[in-house]
């Protein structure tokens, strides 16, 4: 291997590592805080209320710009702040003519989130097979774990061996309901900290959807009929006292569905601007509404549905993007590109290259002029050091660092400049 190619290798290594760390150091020094508000829908003022987090006080506004104090906000949101309202004795008896009480509001309150990094996240596919009908008041953590490969294998944790009897029982039940092995995904809550157990919702090899649970050591397996062509990407199973739905799932065509309890009906929610690979969803359910916030990099959309899942109102807001802020503009001139191995869109390490635009050329030209000035000052011929020139022209600040480290320039009499 000749020295020249080693130099190229070293330059590449320096550019690689500095394009990861320099932007990282820059952004942690000049931290950027997004102005994304949290949005909720008030059944009293019948409008969205936007809470902008501030350093001292968060400011709360509605769509017309009217501001709210914290007390006013809590009074406008009795379905969320019932505990505080009860405490201060301001709890209303009825909202919009509907009689309300605290247990009712508490029972109807739930939250759900979909993040791209949980959808593309770690999943062992090995889950505890919780007995859903043990006859005990609390659920008990089982010794049996299952994984669905070419059969539904049930592993006993005490011996780390396959329980052949149960495996056969469950595998047969799955085959009988038309399950095609192996499973692609299994969704459930592998914990006993829940009021009851609904088992798991499993996607099979042909993207069919199944509900599987263990009832008195016997398998329960039900095929769920999905609208045609729908592929489930992720499901949040909700085992809550409300018992209105099994859970909420998102699909490959970026749809959001509720799966209703008992009759397995799929209810599609008319949301927009959602992409399961990049956006996150927050669902807030209360006595009156289902509020869905879809958050994208530079925008957010909020959709309010009534309890029959009809769209009642929606709002889309734009945000000042990270790269439109003062520090973002500086970074666009300084860094030709930036590299990261982590992303909030996935749990898997990869090489995420971020390229903003061609503004960096201005920065590169300044650095290049600086380098040429240095060459002229030290009487180093520019035309014999084209490698350095090219590095700085393309990789800007990263290239300059590489050049300064390798600092191996040719002088006029073709001798290496030492020091």
């Amino acid at each position, binding site marked *: 291997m000749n020295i020249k190619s080693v130099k190229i290798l*070293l330059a590449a290594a320096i550019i690689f590592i500095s394009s990861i760390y320099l932007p990282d150091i820059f952004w942690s020094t000049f931290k950027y805080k997004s102005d994304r508000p949290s949005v909720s829908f008030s059944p009293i003022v019948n409008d969205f209320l936007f809470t902008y987090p501030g350093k001292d006080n968060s400011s709360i506004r509605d769509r017309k710009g009217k501001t709210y104090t914290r007390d006013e906000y809590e009074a406008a949101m009795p379905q969320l702040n019932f505990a505080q309202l009860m405490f201060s004795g301001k709890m209303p008896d009825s909202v919009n003519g509907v009689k309300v009480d605290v247990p009712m509001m508490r029972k109807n309150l739930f939250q759900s989130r979909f993040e791209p990094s949980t959808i593309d996240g770690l999943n062992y596919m090995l889950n505890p097979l919780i007995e859903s009908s043990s006859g005990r008041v609390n659920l008990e953590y089982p010794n049996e774990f299952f994984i669905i490969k070419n059969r539904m294998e049930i592993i006993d944790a005490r011996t780390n061996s396959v329980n052949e009897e149960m495996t056969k029982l469950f595998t047969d039940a799955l085959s009988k309901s038309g399950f095609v092995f192996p499973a692609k995904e299994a969704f459930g809550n592998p914990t006993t900290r829940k009021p009851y157990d609904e088992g798991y919702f499993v996607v099979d090899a042909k993207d069919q959807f199944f509900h599987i649970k263990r009832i008195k050591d016997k398998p329960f397996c039900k095929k769920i009929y999905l609208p045609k062509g729908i592929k489930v990407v992720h499901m949040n199973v909700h085992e809550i006292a409300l018992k209105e739905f099994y859970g909420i799932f998102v699909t490959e065509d970026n749809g959001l569905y509720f799966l209703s309890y008992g009759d397995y009906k799929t209810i599609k929610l008319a949301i927009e601007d959602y992409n399961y690979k990049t956006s996150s969803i927050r669902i807030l359910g209360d006595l009156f509404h289902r509020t869905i916030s879809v958050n994208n990099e530079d925008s957010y959309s909020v959709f309010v549905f009534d309890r029959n899942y009809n769209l009642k109102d929606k709002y889309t807001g734009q945000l000042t993007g990270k790269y439109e802020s003062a520090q973002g503009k500086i970074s666009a001139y300084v860094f030709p590109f930036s590299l990261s191995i982590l992303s909030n869109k996935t749990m898997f390490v990869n090489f995420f290259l971020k390229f903003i635009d061609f503004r960096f050329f201005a920065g590169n030209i300044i650095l290049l002029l600086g380098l040429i000035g240095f060459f002229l000052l030290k009487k180093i011929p520019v035309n014999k050091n084209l490698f350095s020139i090219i590095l700085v022209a393309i990789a800007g600040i990263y290239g300059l660092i590489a050049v300064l480290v390798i600092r191996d320039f040719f002088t006029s009499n073709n001798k*290496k400049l030492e020091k």
Partner: protein
Amino acid sequence: MIKSLLYKEWLKIRWSFIGLLLVNLIVVVSICVSLYNDFKFYKPNQIYDGVLSWGYVFYIDLMYIPLATGLLLGVVQFFSEINSSRLKLTLHLPMKESSSLLSMQWYGLGLLVLIFIIDAVIISILTSSYFPYEVVNSFLSISLPWFLAGLTAYIFISLIFVEPSWSRRIFMAVVGVGFVNLLFSNIIAMGIEAIFSRTDLYFFIITILLTPIILLAGYNYKKGIR
């Protein structure tokens, strides 16, 4: 010639190698014993729950061991070359200086890989006796970047020692810390934060590609560039 060079390397580092191997074995055995105790004192399903749902990384003690091993082997093997300028003699052996430097470095890498394979095999066997295959697989995928970090640290130590210029030494140390730090980004606060499984191969290739940089350091050394 290479054979005698490698024999010289073996004579130089054999005791350190055995010492490092022992340290690794002690850590691996302590991981085994603590897992054995976990299963003795807790219900197996609790430990399964911890590993599967709560990110209990029972082999966390292994995390920085390959890094320490790589660093120490690099120091032992290359410090004595620089000390009293023995490297000058090595570079004057009747063989290409690039092949002598690379074979020294690859010899050390080979010894490290040997230690790391022993670590991984023992823990895998232990894991597979308590857990299904999926957990063994996740151990291998989580720990692979740590082993690569050991190799990367060794590579940078070797070239930092051969490099004659102090300013470049310091800079290469910074670059080395940067590379090593990347490989530890999968575990944050004892929990699994990211998974390397989609990029294992790329990081392996990057590690291999870092090895020839020692030739530039050797070139600078021989030419006396400072």
